[in-house]
């Protein structure tokens, strides 16, 4: 299929700023780097060039972190061009492993009943190595496994708890595959928080699905198109409600809000840009600090570290620090560019070395934070959370889980007067 026409390499002046921001370039000798992999290759392919046969492999290390795109002073959609360039270079359909990882929602549903068995295999070193070899996964990495309960089942059964008066504005919580199939924790915390604040919350899409981000990251946006088309249909009631659609994940949010339209060219998706909003941004804009303080524990004298994921940095850096400090806490911004996890990338055998090399920066900063007494880390993506936890040993939560947690984040050694 043909990529949407608004993607253009024409604004590129070849200044190389994008390449200086790429976290993969320093660690992978063969990696083409964003300037070549994006605008330059776009022009070559547009003019009918084919590139050499091993070109696809030279683009395969891309994390889709989009830091190149954020860095470009000229608004070139570098990462979007790279995603489509990779797609255009692919000659073979995806292998079984990639077909599974391309649909994390399905994978979660498949794994849920088999959880004890999979857990047992992965817990056994020899069996794990054998299984990892067959699957093309890294044997050294913990396998993400679905956590109970199922979010939608919980939601149907839960009791609404109000603290503030009911508000008329309806809100929809976008259920990404992480919340729907792997870890309902952040979504449960978000529903409880919003209901205490007086909102009527709906979950959408009503049935499990995937926004397509996994296929985009794997360099196959063409496979994300059908998912996005189905997604627009599934979100129709949320769109019709007129209220905001709140996202808990810094990749899924802009995938639905911006990329269905801009990257995938999906009809009817343009309206989502106005409607999809990160939960923390929503709280910072629409809820006063007084209202927040009325519904969540006071955090005075507590301290938490925050990692704005690579994708959150591209949306202006996220509002989590404002929200977390509005309830009295001290927020330390970690300043990590990219953790290197990139969804399933970090689990793939051929990418695990790069993933961990990119994570060195995170490991250094987290070690420093830990030495300074940090005990809890907040970040806006579950998979990034796994990576941060792996390299630091510190518990990692979504900012909304941090807000709602019963327990302390850890003491602030220097409480402000």
């Amino acid at each position: 299929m043909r990529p949407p026409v608004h993607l253009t390499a024409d604004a590129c002046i070849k200044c190389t700023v994008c390449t200086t921001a790429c976290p993969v370039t320093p660690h992978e000798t063969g990696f083409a780097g964003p300037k070549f992999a994006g605008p330059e290759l776009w022009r070559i392919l547009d003019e009918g060039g084919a590139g050499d046969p091993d070109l696809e492999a030279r683009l395969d290390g891309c994390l889709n972190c989009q830091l190149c795109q954020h860095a470009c002073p000229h608004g070139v959609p570098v990462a979007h061009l790279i995603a489509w360039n990779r797609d255009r270079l692919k000659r073979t359909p995806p292998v079984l492993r990639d077909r599974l990882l391309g649909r994390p929602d399905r994978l979660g549903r498949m794994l849920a009943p088999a959880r004890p068995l999979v857990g047992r295999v992965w817990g056994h070193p020899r069996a794990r190595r054998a299984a990892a070899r067959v699957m093309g996964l890294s044997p050294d990495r913990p396998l993400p496994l679905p956590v109970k309960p199922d979010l939608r089942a919980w939601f149907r059964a839960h009791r609404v708890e109000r603290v503030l008066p009911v508000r008329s504005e309806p809100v929809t919580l976008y259920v990404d595959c992480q919340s729907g199939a792997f870890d309902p924790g952040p979504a449960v915390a978000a529903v409880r928080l919003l209901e205490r604040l007086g909102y009527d919350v709906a979950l959408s899409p009503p049935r499990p699905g995937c926004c397509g981000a996994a296929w985009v990251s794997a360099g196959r946006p063409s496979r994300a198109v059908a998912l996005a088309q189905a997604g627009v249909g599934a979100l129709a009631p949320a769109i019709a409600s007129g209220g905001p659609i709140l996202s808990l994940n810094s990749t899924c949010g802009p995938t639905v809000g911006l990329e269905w339209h801009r990257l995938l060219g999906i009809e009817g998706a343009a309206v989502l840009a106005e409607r999809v909003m990160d939960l923390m941004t929503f709280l910072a804009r629409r809820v006063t600090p007084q209202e927040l303080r009325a519904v969540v524990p006071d955090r005075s004298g507590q301290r938490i570290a925050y990692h704005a994921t690579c994708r959150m940095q591209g949306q202006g850096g996220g509002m989590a620090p404002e929200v977390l400090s509005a309830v009295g806490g001290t927020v330390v911004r970690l300043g990590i560019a990219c953790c290197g996890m990139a969804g399933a990338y970090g689990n793939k055998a051929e990418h695990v070395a790069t993933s961990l090399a990119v994570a060195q920066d995170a490991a250094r900063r987290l070690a420093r934070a830990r030495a300074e007494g940090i005990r809890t880390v907040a970040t806006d993506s579950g998979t990034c959370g796994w990576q941060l936890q792996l390299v630091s040993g510190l518990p990692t939560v979504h900012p909304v889980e941090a807000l709602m947690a019963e327990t302390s984040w850890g003491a602030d050694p220097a409480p402000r007067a």
Partner: protein
Amino acid sequence: MVKLDSVVVGGGLAGLVAAIRVAERGRRVCLVAEGQGMLPLFAGPLAVWGAGTGIDAMAAALSPGHPYRVLGAAALRAALAFFRDLTRRAGLPYVGDAEANGWVPTPLGRRYPCRLLPERMAPPQGPAVLVQLPGFLDGVARRVRAALTGAEPVVELEADRGSQVGTGWDSDRWARFLDTAPGARWILERLGDRLPPGDTLLLPAVLGVEGHEALGRALEAASGRQVREWMGWPPSPPGARLRRALVGEAARLGVDLRWGVRATLSGGPHGIEGVTVVPKPAEGTRGVELRAETVVLATGGLPGGGLVVERDGSLLDRTLGRGLAGAGSRLRLFGETPFAAAPAFAAGYPIDGRARPVDASGRPLYPNLFAAGRAVGGYDGDREASGGGVALVTAFVAGGEA
């Protein structure tokens, strides 16, 4: 809607310095930037005036609209002193004489004139030994010697057999390798002992970005010599270091830094009334409204993305939605011959003595709008070798007013 004292649009040298200055005055300031600006390409030395004359003599000889002339010699001196303090606090001290040019060796073996330069790039003291990295794309040590005595010994480092280290690497790639633990080990092992005699080790400017202070010190300890760097081509680690230092300092002072967002300004009879920011890939959507008493436009002219060239060769400021006087045609805009002066790169707003953009009659466009860096016109940073100095003094004045 978010209320602030001041909003700085642009995150290059000018925007960062202006925001730091506003924050130092105790004001609540938010910096919004679409991209990183030109700092990743900035070679490191701060060029103030290529011709080398003292500040008073230079300012007196300039045409009336030149920003140095408009803002005055005292402001430039204060700005340079401010920059020295700022960079020292941020762990990247700039040294040199505000009144006369020093120099730094270029890859072509020339001496690049500049007023302030990072300590690591200050001219070597005593006999130097040059270092050639394997497969280095951005210069040949033998050539650099021409800027010195020409007789300096060159140490050729080699990669281990079968290793990919260095193959086709530019400065940026080297610096990021040397920032890693294996990279630091690689260079420290090779430059420990067994070096020809000399007081200074001179390398290309690749000694890390994140870890440049520690690595430089470790190399001095391991080699028992002073360690210096020569200037490179873009993309340039010293620019990345400066960016890192300024971003760190801005964050420390509480500047609310927002990357990846594009701003548009809306003006009314009383001045700029609002700043709308949208995430970059969502161009055309509604975005967030910021309200501030003052706004600094530090959007970087043509190279920084603040100005774009329209089909007919006219220039458009996307942030204010205003056309700028162009050159009539694209050809003339970019110079009719390769090395002719190109009006495109000197294009920007004329300013008044408070760094406010003014119209043709000299009246401020808006009473609360200030401009800094390449967004300001009336100078040719490349030909005059004044880009860094103008960015600095305009940011210093704008940040003092906004």
